[in-house]
């Protein structure tokens, strides 16, 4: 098991750890800006500097239980969002990454979305994902691919979502 969810499989997180939840593609944007980020308040800086055109580029999530199921990701009406609610995020690819905040910079330095999805036989390049996470603890990171429409969960692709 590599903490990957391709078809609604639950992922494993660490209780009480703060995770950044973000579209996998957006990590590429952060990596490009990394040298310019000061880091005093990294998440706010990422929000304002890297993603000036969205209010919800990433979510912050601290699990209360070890097992995270995909049905906890709920679709929200953008016009009803409380922008102070840090559990809301947007995605364009329908591929989201959970990363322990403490390893975030190290993680993004190894991550590349194009490489992650570069496989002719699989949806994700599993070898690439394995090479990214091999230096971290198992529950430091996880990836969820939207299982798609009519899958029984609300996470069906691009959109704005909230983690319950």
């Amino acid at each position, binding site marked *: 098991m590599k903490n990957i969810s391709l078809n609604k499989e639950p992922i494993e997180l660490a209780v009480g750890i703060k995770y950044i939840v973000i579209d996998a593609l957006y990590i590429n944007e952060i990596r490009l800006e990394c040298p310019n980020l000061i880091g005093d308040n990294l998440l706010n800086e990422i929000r304002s500097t890297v993603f000036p*055109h969205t209010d919800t580029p990433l979510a912050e999530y601290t699990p209360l239980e070890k097992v995270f199921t995909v049905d906890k990701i709920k679709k929200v009406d953008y016009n009803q969002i409380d922008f102070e609610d840090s559990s809301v995020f947007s995605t364009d690819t*329908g591929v989201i990454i959970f990363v322990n905040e403490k390893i975030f910079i190290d993680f993004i330095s190894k991550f590349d979305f194009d490489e992650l*999805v*570069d496989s002719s036989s699989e949806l994700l390049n599993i070898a690439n994902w394995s090479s990214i996470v091999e230096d971290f603890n198992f529950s430091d990171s996880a990836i969820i691919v939207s299982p*798609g429409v009519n899958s029984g969960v609300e996470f069906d692709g691009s*959109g704005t979502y909230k983690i319950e």
Partner: protein
Amino acid sequence: MDFVPIAGGVKDIYKGINEGNGWMVALGAGSIVLDVFTLGGSSLVKGGIKTGVKVGARSVASSAANGGGQLLLTAGQLHKHHVMPQQFRKWFAQRGISNIDDYAVQIGQSTHLKGVHGKGLGTQLPGGRNSQWGSFIKANPNASPSEIFHQAEGLLKRYGLEHLRYVPYK
């Protein structure tokens, strides 16, 4: 005549191929063609008009061959895909388009991840869709809604997705 959703056509093809059922493949392909010729008015043109913007008429005939073929190759689980990216949602709203959730289509997972957002799939799905929007916004920070819809239409054509029907986001 009411529409036959494009997704139904794709699923029929996919199921037909998996089950070795040639009739189902034919039925799926037929429904895609039906979509193309019955749903032209339900696309960005209609969306543009809804937003008070008129966008020029577009050809759907060529997309039957191009887009349909791509979908056939990449059928599987379908993802919702916003034509105007979430990443630039505030900019779209500032430019007068606050309803980007009205412009979502359904495409195969692999097409979505690799062909639209990744490095690309072949010559017809060039990937890097958000980067293309980013470049457009940088070059046209004060674009009008009409220009934005024109860009959206152009990208849909470039990725062979222009024949797809818009689906409810929620």
